[in-house]
C-alpha cells in the first residue's frame, strides 16, 4: 500500500515538474498564434499575423543571416577541430586524457557571463575588433568540449582492428580515414555538429558581449523586448525553439549507440 502511494506521489511530482518546465514554452508558442496583441487568456483568434510582422522587419532578416553564419561556422569548425582533438585524446594515457578533458571542459563549466567577460578582455587586449568572427571564436570555446566528449565516447568503443586491417590491406593513413574511419563515425560527427549548432544558435550572453554591432536571433529578442512586449517576439521565440529542438532531436538520433 505504502509503496503504491509513494509511487503515486513520485509520479505526481514528476508531472508537476514537467508542467512547470514546459508550460512557459507552450505559452510562447500559443501566444505567437493568438490574434490579440495583449498576451492574456483567453486567447481569442488564431493568426499567422505575428509571423508576418516579424518577417516584415529588416532587422529580423539581418539577425537571421548573422545567426545562420555564426551557427554554420561554429558547426563546421567545432566538429573539425573537436574531432581532431578527440582523436588525439583517445590515444593518450588515462591520466593525460583526464587532464585534457578537464582543460577542454573548463569553458563548458564556466558561467557564460564570466567567459564572455574573459573573452572580451582578451580580444580588447589583442586589439581584435568585435565582429561575427569574435562571436564564432567565442562560441567555439564552449561548443567544442561537447564535440570532443561525444566523439571521444564514440572512438573509445571503436574497433581499432578495422583501421589496422585497412592499413594491412594497402590503404594509406588518409585512405584509411576516408574509406573506413570516417564512414564509421560519420553519424556521430553529424550529431556532434548539430549539438554544437544548437548551443551556438540560442546563446545570448556571450554573443551579446562579443558581437560589437548587429544582432543574432537571441540578441534581437532582447532588443525587441526593450522596445515593448509585442507578440512577434513570441513568433521569434517559437522559431528559435523549433530550430534548437529540431537539431537536438536529430543529433540524439544520430549519436545514439547502435547495436
Amino acid at each position: 500500500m505504502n509503496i503504491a502511494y509513494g509511487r503515486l506521489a513520485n509520479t505526481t511530482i514528476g508531472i508537476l515538474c514537467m508542467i512547470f518546465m514546459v508550460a512557459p514554452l507552450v505559452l510562447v508558442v500559443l501566444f505567437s498564434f493568438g490574434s490579440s496583441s495583449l498576451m492574456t487568456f483567453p486567447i481569442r483568434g488564431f493568426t499567422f499575423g505575428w509571423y508576418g510582422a516579424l518577417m516584415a522587419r529588416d532587422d529580423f532578416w539581418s539577425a537571421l543571416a548573422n545567426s545562420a553564419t555564426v551557427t554554420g561556422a561554429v558547426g563546421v569548425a567545432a566538429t573539425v577541430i573537436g574531432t581532431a582533438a578527440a582523436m588525439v585524446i583517445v590515444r593518450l594515457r588515462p591520466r593525460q586524457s583526464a587532464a585534457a578533458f578537464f582543460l577542454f571542459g573548463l569553458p563548458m563549466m564556466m558561467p557564460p557571463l564570466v567567459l564572455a567577460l574573459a573573452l572580451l578582455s582578451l580580444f580588447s587586449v589583442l586589439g581584435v575588433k568585435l565582429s561575427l568572427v569574435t562571436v564564432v571564436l567565442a562560441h567555439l570555446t564552449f561548443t567544442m568540449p561537447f564535440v570532443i566528449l561525444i566523439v571521444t565516447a564514440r572512438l573509445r568503443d571503436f574497433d581499432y582492428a578495422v583501421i589496422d586491417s585497412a592499413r594491412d590491406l594497402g590503404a594509406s593513413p588518409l585512405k584509411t580515414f576516408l574509406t573506413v574511419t570516417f564512414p564509421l563515425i560519420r553519424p556521430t560527427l553529424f550529431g556532434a555538429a548539430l549539438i554544437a549548432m544548437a548551443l551556438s544558435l540560442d546563446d545570448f550572453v556571450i554573443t551579446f558581449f562579443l558581437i560589437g554591432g548587429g544582432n543574432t536571433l537571441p540578441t534581437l529578442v532582447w532588443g525587441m523586448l526593450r522596445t515593448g512586449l509585442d507578440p512577434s517576439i513570441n513568433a521569434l521565440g517559437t522559431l528559435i525553439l523549433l530550430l534548437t529542438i529540431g537539431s537536438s532531436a536529430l543529433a540524439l538520433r544520430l549519436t545514439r549507440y547502435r547495436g
Partner: protein
Amino acid sequence: MNAEPLVRLQGLAKSYGIYRAVHPLDLDFHEGDFLAILGPSGCGKTTLLKMLGGFVEPSEGAILIGGRDVTRLPPEKRPTNMVFQGYGLFPHMTIRQNVGYGLRIAGTPRAEVDARVRDMLALVQMEAFADKLPPQLSGGQQQRIALARALIMRPKVLLLDEPFAALDLKLRQAMQEELRRLHAEIGGTFVFVTHDQAEAMLLATKVVVMSRGKVEQVGTPEEIYLRPKTHFVSTFVGEANFLKACRRLARVSIEGAFAFDDAGPDGDVLVGVRPEKVRLGAAAARCDHRFSGTVTQRIFLGAQVQYTVRLQNGETFIACLQEGDLLPGDSIDVGWMSADQWVVTP
C-alpha cells in the same frame, strides 16, 4: 628446403619503456612453412607478430622478407597480410566489398576484383553470404571472411593472431581443418600465434616456443615434443616426468640408479620422460632404464589409463597406458627407453 630463407629476423626486439616485451631474437623461416608461435599469455607473441606485420615498431634488429629489409616499412607497404584477433571486418561494407577492399585500394580493374572475390569466397565456401554485412555473420563465418580478405592479396606471409581463440571447440576444429586445407591448396607461408600447444602441434610444420619474451626453442612439432630443450618447453607442450640427476664430464647419473652420456655443462639436471613413453610391469623389463615402484593412483581416462607410481627413490612418475588392470598398492617395475628421454637444466 631451399637455402635462402623467406623471412629472416635479426636480433629483433621490442621494449616498452624499460619492459622488454620481446628479447632480441634470430629466426629464419622458409617459403611454404606453416609456423606456430606458441607461448603462454603475455609472453610477447602478438608483439612479435605485429612487428612482422608492421603494426609495432621494433626497438632493435631487422626484418628481412625475400631478402628485402622491411623493418621501417608501414603495414601497407609490406608483402604480409594479417588476420586480426577480432577479425577487424569493416562493418559498413558487404562481405563482397570487404574481401575486395585490398584489391580496390591497389587499383585492380573492376572485372578482376569481382572475379577474384568470387573465387576467394568459393574457396572459403561463403559465396551465399556475399551481399550480407559482417555483423549478420556468425563467428566462424566472420573468421572465414577475414581469412579470405587477407588471402586474396596473395601475401608472401600470412599472419594470424590467435585465429581460433574466440570459437567453440567444434567450430575451432573445423576451422583448423579448413586452414590446413587452405595451406595445402594454395601454398604460401603462414605464421600463426597460439597459446594452445595442441593447435600448434596439429597445424604447424615449425613451432617457435616463447616464454617471457624469449624464444625457448624452434623446431618441428616432433622435436619440440620429443626433444624439448628447456624445462619450460618440456612442461608447456605436454605432460612430463622428471628425475633429478647430475652431470659431470658429459655423463649424467641418477644416484643409485643408472648413468648415460650426455654432452653439456656440469651441474644439476633433470631427466624427462613423457607419460605415454613409460612402460610398466613386464614391458619395463625390456627397457634401457628401470626403477621399481608402487602404484598410488589409477585414473581411467577413456582411451587411456593413467597411473601414478611412487618410485623407490621417492619421486613420482605418471604413466599413461592403453590398458591395464593394476591397482593402487601394487608393486611394479617402471621403465623407459634411452631414446625417449631428454635432459634439461632445472
